[in-house]
């Protein structure tokens, strides 16, 4: 390899290293994700950060290749180009290597956070409590196991695994709690499920992402189709839900 070509690769390598370093610094140094309010949020965020971590060297590599090309391979042309580049049509081994590495990378992320993440997120199909949710333009109705019912308010116990049974009376809506990082559509004629284990005690007043937000367009009130979520300690929750059922 002659000196000139070696220099190309040195440029590329150094730029790649620099860009990757900047990338990692930015991604890991800055808090990009909001507060986690559920066990599921940790799983999702871990997957997110893993994918971010994997993409940084990819971005950095492409950016480095482009910048190296721009800086080292540009030529001054007056009128019409008279000089061609080297007649390289292919480099089979390089293509094979490239395909193999992208394939391995794709398989890797399919396994983790892919399949492993799905298994973790879904967990066991068992729940401590079941909460029924009914969507109807543009509000939510919530039924708890003991007959208690709330309207546009969702109360949950911390550290208990909750199953939501969700349906809709009119259109497709979507039940999204950004603080929990989970969502599932509410579909007329079907019941959809969602498992979450809230963590930490708090309410919409503490974090606006502790809310159920409709995420599937449903007309006029779509943006406002949200209800605050309040996570209580298990004891407080039990007291609250019994009070409500008896008061009713």
């Amino acid at each position, binding site marked *: 390899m002659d000196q000139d070509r070696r220099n*190309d690769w040195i440029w590329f390598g150094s730029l790649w290293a620099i860009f990757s370093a900047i990338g990692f610094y930015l991604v890991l140094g800055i808090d990009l*994700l*909001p507060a986690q309010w559920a066990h599921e949020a940790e799983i*999702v965020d871990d*997957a*997110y950060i893993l994918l971010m971590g994997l993409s940084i060297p990819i971005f950095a590599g*492409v*950016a480095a290749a*482009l910048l190296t*090309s721009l800086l080292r*391979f*540009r*030529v001054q042309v007056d009128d019409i*180009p*008279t*000089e*061609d*580049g*080297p*007649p*390289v*049509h*292919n*480099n089979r081994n390089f*293509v094979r290597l*490239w395909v193999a590495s*992208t*394939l391995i990378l*794709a398989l890797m992320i*399919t396994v983790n*956070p*892919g399949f492993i*993440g*799905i298994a*973790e*997120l*879904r967990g066991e199909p068992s729940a401590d409590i079941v909460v029924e949710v009914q969507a109807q333009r543009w509000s939510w109705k919530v039924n708890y196991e003991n007959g208690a019912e709330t309207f546009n308010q969702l109360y949950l116990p911390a550290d208990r695994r909750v199953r939501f049974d969700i349906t*809709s009376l009119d*259109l*497709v809506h*979507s039940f*999204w709690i*950004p603080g929990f*990082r989970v*969502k*599932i*559509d509410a*579909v*007329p*004629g*079907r019941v*959809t499920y969602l498992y979450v284990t809230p963590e930490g005690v708090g309410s919409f007043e503490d974090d606006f992402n502790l809310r159920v*937000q409709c*995420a*599937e367009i*449903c*007309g*006029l009130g*779509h*943006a406002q189709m949200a209800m605050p979520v309040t996570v209580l300690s298990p004891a407080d929750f039990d007291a609250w839900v019994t009070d409500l059922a008896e008061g009713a």
Partner: protein
Amino acid sequence: MRQLLRAVIFGILGYLIGATLTWLVRGGSLGDEVCVVFGYVVGLVGWLFGIGMGDTWVREWFGLPARESDVTGWKRYLGFSTDHKVIGVQYLATFIVVLLLGGVAAMIIRFELAQAGEGILNADRYNQVMSMHGILMVAVAVAAILGSFGNYLVPIMIGADDMAFPRLNAVTFWLIPPVAIGLLAAPTLGSFDAGWTAYPPLSVVNNGGQILFVLAVTTFGLSSILGGLNVITTIVTMRAPGMTWGRLPIFVWAAFAASMISLLTTQFFAASLVLIAMDRVAGTVFFDGGAGGDPLLYQHLFWFYSHPAVYVMVLPGFGLVLETITHMSRKPLFAYKAVVVSLLTIAGLSVIVWAHHMFTSGMAEYLHGPFMFATEMISVPTGVIFLSAMATLWRGKLWMKTPLFFAMIWIFQFLMGGVTGIFLADVVTDVSLHDSYFVVAHFHYTIMGGMIFAFLTGIFFWFPKITGRMINDRLGIIFALWLTIGFQLTFLPQFWLGTNGMNRRIADYPDQLEGANLFSSISAFFLGGSFLLLIYILLSAARRGPKAGDNPWNASTLEWQVSSPPPEHNFSGQPTVVGHPYGYGTADSRHAEFAGMTAVGLAEPEQAGTGEGGDNE
């Protein structure tokens, strides 16, 4: 002109006749959706009859000779021309206008979103403007490159004198104006507000404008199918002698792969819309969960087309960008065969990944894994495209004119789109990100970054061929940088907005998200401004740009060996293809020859020094 006038009159008459007859038969009022449906259908027939089918096909059906249009000059562009170059330019002009219209809607949307709370638009109006923006832009994305460059370049590149079915080609284009009219007329019936995806039951119960959406978009689908059919037939049957499959310019391959997709999957979108129309006007219950129907049926049908559709958008873009890169860096396209295999693999895989849009839809969970896996696999052939682009640049002789600038920026923009797509293909992260602004940012990187940037690459690269004039390169580069910076500043913050709890398709959002939204809006206006520069660049170059000559880039493929713009029927003699399309750097390499060929697209090897190789008188 005469044809156009006649078409408009017949179209209107047809509408009135269809609507009135329906009204007479069934009563009710003239504004009922059934009347609109039949009015539209008869109107469409009238329009097509008036624009030129009446002069050609219909006369032949009755055994009369066709009356070919004899207009010349610029008037051809306003009539039923069967010349593929005219049709290509018609597409180009039409979709630039639609792009600008969609852009105006985008500016209105971002103005509304600059601040939390209700501003200039109430929630209803917002949904309508957003839906209009979405469907106009999707139409641009699907048809702009294939329609304009597909028509203009494919026949010349393969050494043919026109498309296989020139009249069908004209009909394909003239189906587009009714689409635009249908969509833009929707406000008369109360607009459509269900987004471009038009999910039922919302799209079954909302305002009457939705029926116009359904009709217009179905028409658009018909146009896509016919266009795809024509491109494929042309490529298969009309290649010049010697133009083997291994010598096709890469854009032709890309157009071929994309056309395959539109030919075979668009039906599913049409079918899903027809079912909506039936639910609306015929009283069927396909999407009525209460009566045994299933809203998810629509989503399956819809995405069975609409995921492949994103490849209809970007595959031709790949083609334009790769062409530009190989010509402007004066190196053969790296790994040509692998790229071809990748294009076809992407087209094949694209039909088995649709349900990655439905991970949170409530469909059966055992489907999640397979669809995630299939989706991740698409990154492998897509990676090959990136490899080819970058390896072609590597050690080339980069002639940094505007088209190459755009092509290189494209690589990075589309990479952003592709990598963020992995987040949405992964079930775990998608459960959080689906239907949030993360998705909005993602698809703008893929569609705007991947398709519009490629479209602009193509416009800047082939402008001299189409108009015979050069573009002001300095302004072109300023535009490229302006657009890119504006684009990044507008859409980068939206990834953050998505992860931080902003859902899409909303006119109002929590106050805490105001800062990033304001930033994105201001950047969007900055971005929007750059298009004024584009218009100036194009118009001023078309009117008084310096003459381009036949082969200003000294490129090797066939379209550069004919005059700019190319003559009628393209070639003065039958072209014969004798070699690889991108023989850069190889002495005496020739792609094709034909009688009367003037320009020669390859520079002599460095030491030859006779200096005549690249001349083009």
